[in-house]
C-alpha cells in the first residue's frame, strides 16, 4: 500500500514537473533554428516562415526570442533531415541561400 501511494505521488510529481518545464510563452514562437537565419514557427499552418532574408545574430524586427536553442559541439547547425523527409531544413554551407521550411 505504501509503495502504491509513493507511486501515485511520483506520477503526480512528474506531471507537475513536466508541465513546469514545458511551459512556454504563448505570445512568441520565434525559435533560433539556424545561427544566421531566423524562422517563426507558425502554429496555425505548422510551417516555419523565414523572418528575414538577411542573416543576423539576433532575431530581426525587435522580435524577442526567449527560447534560444543552444547547439552542443557535436551538433549540426540547424536540423538534420533525411533526403526523403518532408521537413526541409538548412544544411551547413547553405547559409547564403535563405530557405523557407514548409510542411505538406
Amino acid at each position, binding site marked *: 500500500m505504501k509503495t*502504491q501511494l509513493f507511486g501515485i505521488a*511520483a506520477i503526480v*510529481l512528474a506531471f507537475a514537473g513536466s508541465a513546469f518545464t514545458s511551459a512556454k510563452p504563448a505570445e512568441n514562437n520565434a525559435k533560433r533554428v539556424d545561427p544566421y537565419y531566423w524562422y517563426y514557427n507558425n502554429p496555425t499552418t505548422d510551417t516555419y516562415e523565414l523572418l528575414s532574408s538577411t542573416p543576423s545574430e539576433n532575431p530581426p524586427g525587435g522580435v524577442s526570442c526567449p527560447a534560444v536553442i543552444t*547547439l552542443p559541439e*557535436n551538433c549540426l547547425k540547424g*536540423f538534420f533531415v533525411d533526403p526523403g*523527409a518532408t521537413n526541409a531544413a538548412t544544411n551547413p554551407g547553405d547559409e547564403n541561400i535563405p530557405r523557407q521550411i514548409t510542411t505538406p
Partner: protein
Amino acid sequence: MKDYILKEFPEGKAAGQKTSISEFIVFLCILLFSYAAFSKLMDFANFRLQLGSSPYISNFAAVLVWLIPGTEILSAGMMVFSRSRKAGLYIFTTLMAAFTIYIAFMLSFSEHTPCICGGIISSLGWFYHMIFNLGFLLLGIEAIRNYRINNHHLN
C-alpha cells in the same frame, strides 16, 4: 516484540532495509518514466521533429512517437501496483537498455547527432544522457534482483 525479532533474526532487519531500498528505486523509476512521457506529450511537435531527425530510426518516427511515451506510461502505471510491478520493472529495464544502446551506437557510429532542443535531462548532452540512462538501467536491474530475492524468502 519487534526489537526481539530484529535482534534474534537480523536477516529480518536486512530484508526490511532491502525492501525500503527497492521501494525507493521503484519510486525513482516511476518518477523518471512518468516525467519523460509527460514531457514528450506536452511538447509533442518538438518530440516528433527530434525523432524525425534522429539517425537510424527516423523512418519509424510515426510509430515511435506514440509507442515510446505510451510504453513509458504503461510501465510506470504497472510499477505502481504490486501485482504488476515485476512486469513493469522488466519493461522499464528493457526500455532503458534499448535507449542506452541506441545512444551509445549513435555516438559511436553516426556522423551526426540530432540537436537537443530543450528539457532538463536533454540539457546534459548525449554522452551524459547515456550515463544517466545507464545509471537507471542498473537501478532497474537491482530492483528486479531485490524483487526476486524478496519473493524467494516469502516462498
